[in-house]
């Protein structure tokens, strides 16, 4: 299968008052056509910044200092601004967390939805509106023609997120980056949106990167998962391996600490001590080392590389960044 996306050694940092905040510290991964990848981590782990770096959608204080991003073989990191603008919204669609603030309250739904096809495909307005109505129907909005003439405040949160999804899909992108698209929604509405995206993905054969802090949510949805911590990918594996044989102490700790509808209620939850790292200092060792119960001397001195686990090579290898061999001592289920 051809790779849709290849990312090599990506570094992104933010200029702050007294120096730099190291948000992304050398991220490398690839994505197949039609693949759905989950990126999971806590706030500040670099998951959003690294994925937004792919299309250089970053605030002015941020800069990509190293690495390259190849989309269908084309280098995006060094492309011109015009070229990147042409890619955003056409080859790469985006869905953001908060549909309340991502839609312009003064513009009718129809006008906003067609903006990107008018821009990228130079369609006439009437034609574009017809297409917009078709996509709104596809994302499950009833009475679509009528909705095109409404304003965002007339729609509920779930409906607005459906509009955002329709907008992202209109140009038939080969990649959609969804940044916590259901975090602002209630759990029953979240279930609606997840089912919708799963269906659309099969229908349109696109690749999806789904960014979230919720490891449970990904279990029913993606092909592969990357776990991020402190600006690094600490573990990457196909879906079942992450949940059944996780190898990074952070992934293991995270999985154990989530109360599920099946854990023994009332018992103490195994928790991860300490708090997530601050990213102002350039890391000298594994970012998780201060909280890790398996820590050895080397962990605080050298950053472990994301290496393929012996015996788990192949097209989608199990990779983990840890000095300690956790095989056989991980999660006991």
């Amino acid at each position, binding site marked *: 299968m051809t790779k849709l996306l290849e990312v090599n050694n990506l570094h992104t940092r933010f200029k702050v008052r007294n120096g730099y905040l190291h948000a992304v510290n050398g991220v490398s991964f690839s994505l197949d056509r039609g693949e759905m990848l989950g990126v999971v981590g806590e706030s500040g782990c670099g998951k959003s910044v690294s994925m937004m770096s792919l299309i250089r959608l970053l605030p002015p204080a941020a800069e990509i200092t190293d690495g390259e991003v190849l989309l269908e073989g084309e280098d995006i990191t060094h492309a011109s601004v015009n070229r990147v603008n042409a890619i955003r919204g056409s080859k790469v669609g985006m869905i953001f967390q908060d549909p309340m603030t991502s839609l312009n309250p003064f513009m009718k739904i129809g006008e906003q939805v067609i903006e990107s096809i008018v821009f990228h495909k130079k369609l006439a307005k009437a034609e574009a509106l017809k297409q917009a109505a078709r996509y709104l129907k596809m994302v499950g909005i009833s009475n679509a023609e009528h909705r095109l003439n409404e304003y965002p405040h007339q729609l509920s949160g779930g409906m607005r997120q459906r509009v955002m999804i329709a907008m992202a899909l209109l140009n038939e992108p080969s990649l959609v980056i969804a940044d916590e698209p259901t975090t602002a929604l209630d*759990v029953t509405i979240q279930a609606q949106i997840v089912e919708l995206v799963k269906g659309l993905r099969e229908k349109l054969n696109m690749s999806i990167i789904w960014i979230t*802090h919720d490891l449970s949510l990904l279990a*029913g949805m993606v092909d592969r998962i990357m776990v991020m911590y402190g600006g690094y990918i600490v573990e990457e594996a196909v879906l079942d391996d992450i949940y059944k044989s996780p190898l990074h102490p952070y992934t293991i700790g995270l999985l154990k*600490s989530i*109360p599920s509808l099946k854990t023994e*209620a009332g018992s103490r939850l195994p928790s*991860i001590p300490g*708090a997530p790292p601050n990213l102002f200092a350039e890391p000298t060792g594994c970012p998780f080392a201060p*909280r890790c119960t398996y820590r050895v001397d080397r962990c605080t001195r050298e950053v472990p590389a994301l290496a393929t686990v012996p015996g788990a090579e192949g097209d989608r290898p199990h990779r983990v960044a840890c000095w300690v061999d956790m095989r056989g001592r991980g999660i006991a289920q």
Partner: protein
Amino acid sequence: MNMHAKQEPLVVVENLVKHFPVKIGAFGNQSAVVHAIDGVSFAIYKGETLGLVGESGCGKSTTGFALLQLHKATSGSVKFDGVDLSKLPAKDLRAMRKRVQIVFQDPYSTLNPRMTIGEALAEPMRVHKICPEKDIQGRVARLIRDVGLNPNVANRYPHEFSGGQRQRICIARALASDPEFIVCDEPISALDVSIQAQIINLLMDIQEKYNLTYLFIAHDLAVVRHISDRVAVMYLGKIMEIAGKDELFGRPLHPYTKALLSAVPEADPDVERGRKRIILQGDVSNAIDPPSGCRFHPRCAHARPMCAGEVPELEDRGEGHFVACLRVAEIEKETV
């Protein structure tokens, strides 16, 4: 935990109603009423944790606030240890406040940035005259230790702490007046995933140590199941179902509870592949103009015309399992 300490209600809420008058329309020229809670009754027994779950806007936080008299209820009563709080004069209510406390969702906005941790913890002790002045230092140190921090942090300011540590401080502050009852209003929703488990453990530890009763408000069902003894499910200002935790999660009877449970994702790919989701159609209805009859009927797959006409009351289905559904008996037969 505390399974046997039942049968003595500490808090009794009866037919609690809270309506908020609002202005709607383009120019704010129409009056309307948000039916935030519409006739809610329940009891919380000494030493237990009652979980209160529901989606945003269902009235769960309003219930917690009205219970503490932070909102003046429109009607209904809240009895704490036999005393009706809503009829209490201000002076007596203030005295009562040391016995009932709250932990809020956001530990960033609930601590005064200009007060050291020590001052913040000493304030309720002074206000409520919990102990002589000379003992305050020692009490503060003990509280800080009890919530898992080092007592030498007493001289530091809130900005020096992470979210999880701040929530520990908020819990210590709630404990400062030596309360019997604490409302936990989404105490872990604003925290990072790896920190949530720490705070859940802490809340359970101090419940045992201080002999506390909790009303635990949250939207995360797995967390509520973990910490609660009994659970109440709210929808649009009404309690739909209330039961012991094992009953509610093992044998949910209300169609809304069933849908809510089936929407919770599990961190297990095999479970996810095999599960059949009940996908609710549409959105939560508007609390300004709530549906007639059963509030849930427009989204309910089991609804019949009668559901729009009659408001279901909570009905005992045995073993302390109460359900507000007109068709609960029929639905139970259908699914067996």
